[in-house]
């Protein structure tokens, strides 16, 4: 049976399935104390806020302004961390879609804004 977990006074390692934790490289570890894990500390979906709108979202205080992933199919947008606990999302105009190769079609796009607050500092 493959050794998968190693705990010593120097740390803890968990290898990927099929890799011996005693001989595997750091790249082959599922967990190693040498590297951090990315964690989503809060995520959510904001119903279509409309163009040119501002939405403030309260986020957990991690002691720093965190990295945030934001996406929206319909609007251009920006985001700002006005404090360690406030995420400000601003939509702009709707994204203009053009396609020179197809006849004009009506594309229904989702205006909801999805976000994920990570456990990493943004700056």
């Amino acid at each position, binding site marked *: 049976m493959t050794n998968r977990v190693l*705990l010593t006074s120097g*740390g*803890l390692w968990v290898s990927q399935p099929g890799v011996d934790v005693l001989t595997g490289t750091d*790249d082959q*570890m599922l*967990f*190693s*104390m040498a*590297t*951090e*894990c*990315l*964690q*989503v*500390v809060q995520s959510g979906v904001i119903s279509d806020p409309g163009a040119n709108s501002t939405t403030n979202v309260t986020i*957990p205080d*991690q*002691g*720093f302004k*965190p*990295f*945030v*992933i*934001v*996406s929206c199919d319909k609007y*251009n*947008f*920006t*985001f*700002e*961390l*006005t404090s360690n606990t406030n995420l400000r999302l*601003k939509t702009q105009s709707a994204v203009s879609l053009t396609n020179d190769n197809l006849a004009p079609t009506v594309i229904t796009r989702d205006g909801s804004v999805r976000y994920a607050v*990570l*456990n*990493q*500092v*943004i*700056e």
Partner: protein
Amino acid sequence: MTNRVAFGAVGGGAFGLKVSKPGYDVLDSGTIDAKLAFDSSWTKAQRIYLSGVYTATVNPSGVYGTVNFGATLSAVPTVLAAVRDSASSVWNPLEQVNTGWSNANIDGQFQAMLAYVDRIQFFRPITGNSRIYSYIVLLP
């Protein structure tokens, strides 16, 4: 010496494992998620290879600045990144950069960031202010 690994009962009849980042006591009740390197209660986790901030100064020639990994990864990594004007606190996703400071005239396309197995590259603005890129490189 700081306690960094704890496993056993975590309450509610459940058992788990927690590992804190260097310098943080895993047994400190005030240790929040942001100070943990791992917690078995997390539903999903992805290991981070590298993170940081890169300041791209203006260069009218349309070139990229480079962050070298100092190693070669097993595959091109996923990179999360956002960018802002150095004179503003407002962040933009890389997909929505203002092409006014780019070289978008090349084939009508503009790539603010390029990822390789051993480095990432960020486009340097051709005009205006320098740009601040924040990035997180995930282990493949």
